[in-house]
């Protein structure tokens, strides 16, 4: 049975309100300051037109929407050179700290430097797991690749980050995301 316009609108509003904050935060990590709302608005417009394609379950729907936001960002970058991945930015590390925070700040400075040396492909693979908190299956959906391919990419990204940090050996017990 086909969906009535009112039902369709109600479904979209529920999706919008459930995922808006996550999408804005997702975009804030990937576009210059002040552009996240516009990027998300463009992505939601696409979702409104493709509502029948949105997965029924919220976690999968959210990942699908993340993918739309990512494609929106990629489209905005295309022109001179086609990009395959969206770089992820980090907050600036504060340089004023209490003595107790010195170790954390030092670690963050190292991380920020190492992060800048990562490729965009590795940045987004790591960010999806560590910052966006997505399980592998949903992160893979965002990137449009299989879960296996994502886990391989994530493993390589972790190794690359470790290499750029230039320190600690790999812990044997390190746990992969589910």
């Amino acid at each position, binding site marked *: 049975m086909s969906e009535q316009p009112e039902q369709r609108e109600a479904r*979209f509003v529920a999706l919008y*309100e459930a995922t808006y904050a996550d999408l804005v935060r997702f975009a*804030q990590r990937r576009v210059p300051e002040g552009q996240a709302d516009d990027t998300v608005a463009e992505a939601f417009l696409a979702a409104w037109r493709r509502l029948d394609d949105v997965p029924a379950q919220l976690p999968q729907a959210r990942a699908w929407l993340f993918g739309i936001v990512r494609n929106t960002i990629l489209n905005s970058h295309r022109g001179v050179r086609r990009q395959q991945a969206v770089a992820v930015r980090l907050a600036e590390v504060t340089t004023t700290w209490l003595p107790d925070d010195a170790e954390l700040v030092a670690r*963050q400075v190292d991380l920020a430097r190492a992060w800048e040396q990562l490729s965009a492909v590795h940045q987004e693979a790591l960010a999806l797991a560590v*910052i966006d908190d997505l399980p592998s299956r949903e992160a893979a959906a965002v990137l449009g690749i299989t879960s296996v391919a994502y886990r391989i990419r994530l493993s390589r990204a972790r190794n690359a980050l470790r290499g750029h940090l230039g320190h600690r050996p790999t812990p044997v017990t390190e746990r992969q995301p589910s």
Partner: protein
Amino acid sequence: MKDDYAALKALDPATAEVDPHSPRAQASLERILATDPSYGVRRPRFRRPLMRVVVGVAAVTVAALAVFVPRSGGDAYAGWTSAPFGLSPEEYAIGVADCRQSLQSLQPPSEGSEVAVAERRGKWAIVILKGPGKVDSFCMTNVVEYDKRSGFGSAAPTHPAVGPREVLALQMGAYGGKEVGYVTSAVGWAGSDIVGLTYTSPTRGIVKATVKNGFFAFWVPGQEFGGPDWKPVLAQVQYRDGTTAEITILLS
């Protein structure tokens, strides 16, 4: 590495509190809901019968041209201004998305293009998409009344070599019909020395074009040039050195 990942998470630049019920979020939601969700994706926006409306009155350099006339009748262009205005972020996002969507039915496609110009006069916006390669395209859409949305678009197969003091039109002419009124527009490429362009309309006075990123665009309500009795279209241009000149807008 666990400590590193915790530290990495602490460097998250995203805002902790984002409210989907904020005025901005709700305004964006309302604008989206006001659009027709069914067009553009499942059925082509530009339909062949509407093409007949413009044949004979518009001249284009293009590989493709499509037109979708307004539904709102004679007041469709109320609020038009002789100088262009910018778009709000929401209007910009929707206008650009709408333009890309509209041009999907044309060849060559606009996929991978960048926004070169987005200007608004009243309810209507002109968006020019640059590239990829040498393909440029533009469209005009109603960014205020989504229930009365309409527009047209065209795509040029090649980006021509434009002299620094030269203006070449990708499209110029009138569109529309008796029932809905006409729009006359000129859109194209402006040389690197050109920083301003005005057109003197016999009915509207001086019309200021948008000149940006190597492109120019302006439009006026009504039927002013184009058609079978084609006459040269004159414009006043301002060069980078401050001098001005009268030029003829040439169709590429």
